[in-house]
Structure formats: C-alpha cells, structure tokens
C-alpha cells in the first residue's frame, strides 16, 4: 500500500493512500472523531458505512465529512471536530 503524507490536526503524518479516513483514524488511536454539538460527548465510527453520520471530521476545511466513506489522498488536511467544527 502506498503511504502518502497527510495532516492530522495540523501534524504531518504518513497514511495509506486509498484507505478510509475512519480506518486511518482508528489505527492512529482516535476512537472519537468529534464531540456532540450540545453535550460535548465523544463520537466515532459507529455504522462504518456512511449512514449514521457519527464519525464526522473536518477535511480540507469542510466540516462534517464522514470519515468512514472518505478516502485518504496526498496532502489531505484532517481535523477532529469539537461539535460542528469550525467552517473555514
């Protein structure tokens, strides 16, 4: 598998190109990808198939992207979110 460089919360790290962001985050030890909007509770991969909208992350400035159905590409900026995240 080809490793590419991505940015996780601003830090450059190596990640397997084509793997799902969700699988990569789990491997990197991030069980929670975000917190809930009002209660601040941790949320992460639940269904893993794009239905439940729990594993939301910010990708290249776009908030609320589903980690489980987004594939790693070179240079991708991945951020775990507080609540709805900061739209850039």
């Amino acid at each position, binding site marked *: 598998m080809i490793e590419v460089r991505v940015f996780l919360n601003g830090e450059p790290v190596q990640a397997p190109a084509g793997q799902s962001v969700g699988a990569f985050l789990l491997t990197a030890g991030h069980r929670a990808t975000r917190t809930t*909007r009002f209660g601040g509770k941790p949320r992460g991969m639940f269904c893993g198939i794009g239905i439940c909208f729990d594993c939301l992350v910010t990708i290249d400035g*776009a*908030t*609320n*992207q589903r980690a489980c159905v987004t594939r790693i590409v070179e240079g991708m900026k991945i951020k775990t979110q507080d*609540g*709805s995240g900061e*739209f850039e």
Partner: protein
Amino acid sequence: MNSPDVIVIGAGVVGAACALALCDAGLKVLVLERSTISSGTTSAGEGNILVSDKTPGPDLTLGLWSRQAWFEVSDRVGGGFELEAKGGLVISRSAEGIAKLRQFAVQQRIGGVEAVEVDHTGVHELEPHLEPDASFGIYYLQDAQCHPMLAAARMLQAVRVAGGEIREAEEVIGLSRAGSELSVRTKGGLFTAPIIVNATGTWAGEIARLAGSDLPIAPRRGFILVTSPVPNLVRHKVYDADYLANVASGEAEIQSSAVVESTQSGTILIGSSRERIGFNTSLDVQILRRLARQAISLFPLLARVDVLRAYSGFRPYMPDHLPVIGEDPLVPGLFHAAGHEGSGISLAPATGELIRAAVTGESSFMDPTPFSPARFMSTS
C-alpha cells in the same frame, strides 16, 4: 369529552393556535386530527414568522399583530419552541429589483414595519459570508423564526392542561347539521358541538365540501433542502427579493428563489420553490439542484457544505393570497381558519384571535371582512 363548545378540525399550527385562543376564552375545546399533530404543512416548512413578505393592507396588519402575538404565546405556554427574533435580510442584485424592493419597503414602513436600507458594508456586517458583490438589502428587524412542530405541540399541551382534549387518528368523513348543533363524523366516532373550526390547511376545501360549502384552496408544492450543521455561516433569514414576486404570483408553473436560514440545531434550511401540480409527492431533483444553485449564489461557501436531506409539502394556496378566516355563510356554526399559503406559521396566533372574536361575537384588533369566506361565494 362530553359536549364540547367547539370542535377544531386539524392539529397543525393554525388549529393549535385556534384551540388555545378558544380555550383561553373559557370554551371547552375538542381537537380532531386525522393523523398526528403537525403532520400536514406545519412540518413541511421552515418556521418563518415574517413581516418582510407581507403586502401593506390586511395581510400586513394580520402579520404584524401575529408576529407580536407569537411572543405572548411563548410566555403563555412556557416557551420551548425556539422562538427567535433573528431579523431578516432581503437582498436584491439588479437595478430594477433594487428600485422595486426599496419602493415596497417604503410602503411597508408606513404600515409599521421596521425596515432599514443597508448598503454593501451593511449587508456584509449583517452576513459576513454573503457573496462579495451583494450591495443592497433591506434589513427587517421584526422577522422571526420558530420550530413550528414544537410550537403546535406546546400550544396543544397548554390546551390539554386547561381541560381541552386532543384526539389524533380521527379523520373527518362527514359534517352535517344536527338540530342547533353540527355533528362531525370520523372513522372512529361521532362528535357534536355548536361550533366547528376548520383548520385543515391545504385540505380545508374538502372539509368545506363535506358540509355542503366550498373553498378555492389548492396545493402549492414546495421543497426544502437541509444541510449538515454549520453554525454562524448564516445569521439571519436571508432571501432574494425575487421571492416576493414568487409569493405574489398566481402562476402554476415552477418558481423558485433563494431563501436561506440556519436553525438552532445548526443545520441550514434552503428554500423556496412553488408550483401547483396537485398533491404530487414525487421528488424532483431538478428543483433541488436549482435551490442549491440559488443558495450558493447568495452564500458561495455553501458549495462546500453537504446536504443531508430534502423534504416537500403543500402550501394552502388561495387565488387572492389572503387566508380565509370567519364563519361560512352557507353553514352557520362552521368557521374556517385556513388558506395561509406560506404564512401559516406567521399568521397562526392572529388567526386564532380572529376566530376567538368571531366565535364569541366580540371585536378584535382588526376588521376581519377581507378574510371572510363569503368573498368566494355569489350571493345570488
């Protein structure tokens, strides 16, 4: 409930407001709903409480009073329905459109609307993410928003606490005179009262016809897109001035204009389309695309925000764009409270008040004649 004073048919926001007003006037109220609370048009809109789209005259008088009354309703029921005086911003981007909008606002101000003209700097101070070229807008300070299903539920809860009864799954299939009273037959039973209020929105013509009368209400379909939550991207209710022309139009074919606002849960609602194609519930992707495009032209950042879902509903369209509020001249005791098109949430409390006044024979804040059902019926 034994012998109610009034039966309200329909547990949407208008029926709920009528029930609450009648209940607070000391009447025993029974509400019959064919499905569940807010299952009709109340759950198919955006929760707009607008004065910005009201034309000076009876429409605006009703709208201004109703907007104020919503805050009293909130106090009455203990809040809990996300009522928010967020303000509205109407944008126009053509010389002709600006001239029309400016003139409309001048007339509205005479009628009591707080409408402030804002320039390029002003519109971007109000909405920092608005497209950079937008350079003219009218800021409507009184425009407000609420969660309509919660509003209806809170009002009906208050009715129940005050001794009223709400019965769901009671579809009305007959309405006839029974001595000095009117009797309502549902699939489940027979209910009798001296007064019936028809608050069935888009379906009010069917109830009128069951009673031997008629109302010219037609469904006008609209779609809404819901985005993923993006707090602070849109701060007011923002819409294109073309919306005003679409509201006022009687055309059957599809019309759409950007209407964008955020909700307290962080999602953004994107409307607004209007078309008269009967009770057609099919999903039209072309219309959804058009709504998305128009919203992006107002807020370019929306191009990077995901749409979570879309829904549609049927506004109760009236040929003269005024609701029908008052007693049916052909069926004494039957009062209509329907036909609000896209303003049912806006106008619900004022409609409840006019129905209360009509039922009790008292006067109210305005002359209800422009809304009379008699305007559609020949007197010959």
